């Protein structure tokens, strides 16, 4: 029974709480048991606080008892938060040896605050590469995090700890951050659902070094759980300078309405990714997923935006490489010596880009935004692969043997950090090695609820499987 609670979708778990068939304390104990069993192999946590979690669980348990008042629909659900998000009373190291180990840890980021107010139980902080700088998860601070589908493979990144935990029940919900794909890459590589919401929808504080490229999103084993998280996380906070108008959106609105008659563009290469860079198994799985949408009644056509020669990879590279220049500069030389050589090299690379190149890239980001906006005016949704490949070996800085400084190996995700559109990934099959493949579902600005609804429709006919490891308790 305890093992089941850990793998149980949050929306089912809270039903058990309500019927008093399970309690938050039992759920936390189940998660802790799995952490004990799996974390030594996976290395998903930067920090764990079982005592605080049990205390919070006991408080929640009281709220679920007769006469108690629960704080939200996910009160008492065990959750993990990435090491990039500030949490009061728990260290936030940004995956870095250069940050101060002693704190003080006095501030909750808006998301952490909202999740606490909602009564969720924070188990611990999940691993990230230093400042989330690369799409895999290893750091000098914690070493490499592994993929629960295959030890020795990367879970992707930068929210790699969060997905490794979520995939095997070390927590029922997970929070990641996404500056070029850092929620969607690891969710695709570990067979989870993940959403990068419309920029500004989930408040951020303090501002990321990556500015408006940076997003916070849910990583879950079911789509409904992500929607429930959005109902908590997507509330305004005056500390976020880019916060969108509060629309009091219910992210479960129309959740079961399906995709019938929706206009969907299917773009196997998003109009710019070289076909030979896309793994054959990925291409086939994504095409099959597209056909599922057809059978569900959507009006799917193959169509790609005309990017007019602009290359999102180059635009994003110029943005993030220049942004890390200042990040690295903000540390003393002594501290810099402790930093990931790859990140330092990226900063050096960024410093040599030249101001004109960066100002041009900023302008090109606007142009690509206008192009994608006009493309999305024709469609409700856009389907693409999430990643061109599946999970590769740990301790590489990027796919294809790259140094990670060129983030172009994740072209499908980064495009929507530039354009700020909502984009989710949902598992759509396994490759020849049994590794998960992700389908990316994108919509126009502020249509996050539609993305969730479409993903839910797909999930109903193609449920998300757990990795074999999760069953080996």
């Amino acid at each position, binding site marked *: 029974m305890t093992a089941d609670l850990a793998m149980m979708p949050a929306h089912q778990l809270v039903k058990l709480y309500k019927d008093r068939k399970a309690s938050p304390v039992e759920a936390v104990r189940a998660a802790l048991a799995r952490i004990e069993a799996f974390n030594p192999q996976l290395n998903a946590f930067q920090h764990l606080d079982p005592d605080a979690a049990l205390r919070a669980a006991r408080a929640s348990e009281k709220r679920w008892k007769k006469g108690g008042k629960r704080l939200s629909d996910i009160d008492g659900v065990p959750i993990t938060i990435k090491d990039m998000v500030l949490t009061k009373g728990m260290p936030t190291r940004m995956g870095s040896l250069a940050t101060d180990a002693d704190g003080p840890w006095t501030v909750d980021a808006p998301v952490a605050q909202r999740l606490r107010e909602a009564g969720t139980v924070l188990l611990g902080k999940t691993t990230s590469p230093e400042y989330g700088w690369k799409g895999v998860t290893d750091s000098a601070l914690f070493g490499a995090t592994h993929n629960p589908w295959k030890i020795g493979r990367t879970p992707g990144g930068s929210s790699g700890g969060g997905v490794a935990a979520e995939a095997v029940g070390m927590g029922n919900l997970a929070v990641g951050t996404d500056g070029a794909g850092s929620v969607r890459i690891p969710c695709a590589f570990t067979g989870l659902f993940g959403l990068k919401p419309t920029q500004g929808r989930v408040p951020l*504080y303090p*501002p990321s*070094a990556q*500015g408006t490229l940076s997003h916070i999103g849910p990583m879950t084993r079911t789509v409904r759980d992500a929607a429930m998280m959005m109902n908590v996380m997507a509330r305004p906070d*005056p*500390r*976020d*300078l*880019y*916060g*969108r*108008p509060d*629309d009091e959106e219910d992210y479960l609105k129309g959740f079961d309405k399906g995709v019938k008659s929706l206009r969907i563009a299917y773009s196997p290469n998003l109009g710019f990714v070289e076909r030979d860079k896309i793994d054959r198994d990925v291409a086939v799985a994504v095409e099959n997923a597209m056909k599922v949408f057809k059978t569900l009644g959507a009006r799917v056509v193959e169509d790609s935006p005309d990017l007019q020669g602009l290359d999102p990879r180059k635009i994003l590279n110029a943005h993030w490489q*220049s*942004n890390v*220049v*200042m990040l690295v*500069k903000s540390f003393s030389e002594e501290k810099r010596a402790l930093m990931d050589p790859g990140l330092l090299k990226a900063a050096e690379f*960024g*410093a040599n*880009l*030249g*101001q*004109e190149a*960066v*100002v*041009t890239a*900023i*302008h090109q980001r*606007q*142009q*690509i*935004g*206008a192009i*994608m*906006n*006009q493309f*999305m*005016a024709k469609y409700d949704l856009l389907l693409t692969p999430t990643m061109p490949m599946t999970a590769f070996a740990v301790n590489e800085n990027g796919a294809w043997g790259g140094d990670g400084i060129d983030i172009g190996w994740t072209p499908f995700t980064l495009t929507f950090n530039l*354009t*700020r559109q909502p984009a989710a990934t949902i598992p759509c099959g396994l490759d020849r090695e049994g590794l998960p493949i992700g389908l990316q579902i994108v919509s126009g*600005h*502020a249509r996050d609820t539609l993305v969730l609804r479409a993903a839910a429709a797909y999930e109903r006919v193609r449920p998300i499987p757990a990795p074999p490891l999760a069953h080996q308790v």
Partner: protein
Amino acid sequence: MTDDLAQQSAARLATLYRKGKASPVETMKAVLARNEKVGPQLNAFTRVDGGAALKAARAAERRWKKGEPLSALDGVPVSIKELVRVKGWPASMGSKLTDKAPADADAPAVARLREAGAIVFAQSTSSEYGHKGVTDSPLNGITRNPWQLARTPGGSSGGAGAAVAAGLGPIAIGTDGGGSVRIPSSFNGLVGLKATFGRVPAWPPSLTGDLANTGPMARTALDCALIMNVISRRDPRDAYALPEDDTNYAKKIDGKLKKLKVGFVLRFGDHPLDIEVAALVTRAARAFEKLGCKVEEVPAPFSYADAGRAFVVHWLAALQRLLQLYPESRHGEFDPNLLASAKAGLRYSLQDVVNAQVTRRELAIAWNLFFAKYDLLLSPTVAVQPFEVGKNLPMGPDGKANALWSPYTSQFNLSRHPAASVPCGLSRDGLPIGLQIAAGHYKDALVLRAAARYAEAHPVKFPVLPETK
């Protein structure tokens, strides 16, 4: 009567049209006649298309006669700043270097105004690429302030400001990247709004990116609200547009300001402030007490020196792209001030640019927290009175050129908050002074309501400008 029609607000014109007491054709003729008379003194327009305007006016007249106007702005003449695209006119940008072929599409605001029946009759002048806060350019020469022809109307939407003040169309579209709607609104005694960034869709993307805003300029807050009702509507070409919220700005302008918390900031930092501006704006801020607000005089929430530097780096680094866009052989045709600015932009390092972005975020958070505490900010719009034409900078109190004459506007371009200018009196020289009203993100309607309540209680008697003798 004909001259009178040129002095009416858009809202008043709609009432006259509805009652059959005036027609769009009469208004258009009055405006064109007035332009014949005073236009040459002001140099507010790069072009006037009287023929097309009268044709559009006749169509509007038919709709009003049938009782089927397209909107409250149907048949109202509007001028468009030369930085905003109008189909069939060159997007001249005050520059000798721009392509003078007719634009093949309307910018979103222009498209919406046409759909609403407004008569796009003239293109108004701007400084070259809107790069400075006064209005003269190599292409069009000097634009003058109708309140005093020897003074600047401010800029960069100086043509728009001069035109509306002089009765050359009751409403105008300007753009504001650092204050270019609010400065000329202040200098010409108008109400002008820089809305929350993204509230008014724009296209094509501006050189100055998300500092740039398209905004309304008029003689009344209500007219600005009527324009906002039209130009704030969706356009898929703008990737930064906010979700459409169907706000009826004209309706939301009604209502009291009771119990609002107002933060009054007289100085944003260590910059010169004209004594008459200080006096009039302080008086205006006190008047908000009488309107039912709780007014607190408070310091600015962010370092002015840091904010100023962050803005200048953003601005000049953006202008630097002009040097790439045009061959070096033609750089001599730029306004020397623009060329110097672009070259200065080129000298910034990448680190300067990224640092400025970081400062911008800190500044925006500081103002966000300010607006979590106060419903409204009141401040001067500009620190000086309208100054002599032909100069890029006014004379400072120390007898030297004063580069800090407009310290109040650009912070809200950096922070993206809505901010308006509303006239709050005339100086001893008879020159208009503006009060800036700003609020939290998306509270554009509240800003206009505050402007309306204040203006009603403290009307500026609008003379027929330039004074005709």
